[in-house]
């Protein structure tokens, strides 16, 4: 088991966003969390990743974690290549491995030509490709994706699912937050978040 959460609860003032959330993720599975806008999906992701504290409950994680936030979190004045360098250092990846991994991801998501471009000069879709690539750079055991394909064209969307299935075969546990119920058939498990609980 890669991940387990028990009885997570979170409130903002009087508003109870999450009431009692318990679930677990096994290696080599793709799990989806669906729910309407404002249902607390992103808050749950932030608690899992460690950006926020839960008011109650426990979260246990094993292995390397990759996190792709909903909105591209990037430095506007750095280039794509500099992002790979900066985040490789953060992950503790050596130069050789970092170069190999970034080449692989640039090739797979088809944006190698933007390597030397600054983020402010990139389209939203290309920024999102880099946003996703950063979460994959260190070959995570648990990958947490918060609506990762915002701004992707159809080709990139297909490439995203190809790569996600490749990660699944490799034994990675993938958790995807989405509002697209049409993706149900791609998921091994699905949880629907409504009024702060899974229904």
């Amino acid at each position, binding site marked *: 088991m890669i991940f387990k959460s028990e009885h997570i609860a979170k409130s903002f003032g009087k508003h109870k966003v999450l009431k009692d959330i318990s679930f677990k993720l096994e290696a080599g599975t793709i799990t989806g969390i669906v729910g309407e806008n404002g249902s607390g999906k992103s808050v749950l992701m932030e608690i899992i*990743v460690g950006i926020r504290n839960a008011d109650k409950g426990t979260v246990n994680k094993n292995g390397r974690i990759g*996190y792709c936030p909903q909105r591209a979190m990037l430095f506007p004045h750095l280039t794509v290549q500099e992002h790979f360098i*900066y985040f490789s250092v953060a*992950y503790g990846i050596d130069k050789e491995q970092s170069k190999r991994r970034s080449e692989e991801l640039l090739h797979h998501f088809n944006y190698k030509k933007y390597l030397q471009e600054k983020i402010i000069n990139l389209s939203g879709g290309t920024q999102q490709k880099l946003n996703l690539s950063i979460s994959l750079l260190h070959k995570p055991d648990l990958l947490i994706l918060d609506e990762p394909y915002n701004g992707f064209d159809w080709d990139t969307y297909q490439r995203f699912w190809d790569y996600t299935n490749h990660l699944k075969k490799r034994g990675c546990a993938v958790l995807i937050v989405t509002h697209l119920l049409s993706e149900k058939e791609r998921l091994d498990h699905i949880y629907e978040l409504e009024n702060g609980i899974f229904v």
Partner: protein
Amino acid sequence: MTVNKVITGLSMILRMLVRQKIVIILLLIIPAFFLTIVEFTTSDRMLPFQLASLNDDVFINISEKGISFIFFAVASSGFLVSFLALNLIQKNNTVNRRLIICGYHPIELLISILLALFLVVALIAIYVGILTNAFYTIDNLGRFILSLVLIGFVYGSYGLAIGSLVKAELEGILLIVLLVNIDVGWLQNPLFYAEAQNQIIIKFLPAYFPSQTAIITAVTDYSAVNAIGNGIVYGLGFLIFSMVIFFFKMRTK
């Protein structure tokens, strides 16, 4: 903590700063603009005054133009460094948080920011010192530049504290402009200070010790050790405050 992380952080922060054209324009234009205004608006009449940090029997004789140049050099340095410090700590807050999630320790990131800020403080002090000297000959240029480093340290630390505390950019800029304007831009002017009704309030403001140091070092041979020491303590207070806030905001839960 790894040195590699700090050096990479420093390198990336400096690249980002250099690539923001507005930052470079501000750095070059603001001090030159302030000092040019002084050149055209002040007279050469002599103004003898006493300085709060020196003994009562010491009178400083300097022209209105001379004291205005020194005063505006301090004000522009304080404003620029404070603004840049705010920019450094606040602007990339969310991405810095991501770096921490990915493996950076908040302290490693903070040290990178502080090193970048120190470099910026030194560069601004040298630039403004040399520029001021081009308008008005400073007796002890080296010591004067060090006094500009001191105002940079105090107001840079203030900028970091505001950046750590306040989320919105506009509120941060407002808090900086307000204090810089009232403190460095007005109350610390020795001509105003000499006539002020309540001097004790002025002594507690952040720019008091750096301003005193700047005037002592620029036009006298007196020691400024006490003012420098007190200024460093003041700056350290802001710095420690900002570090604590940054650490608790940025650490992963």
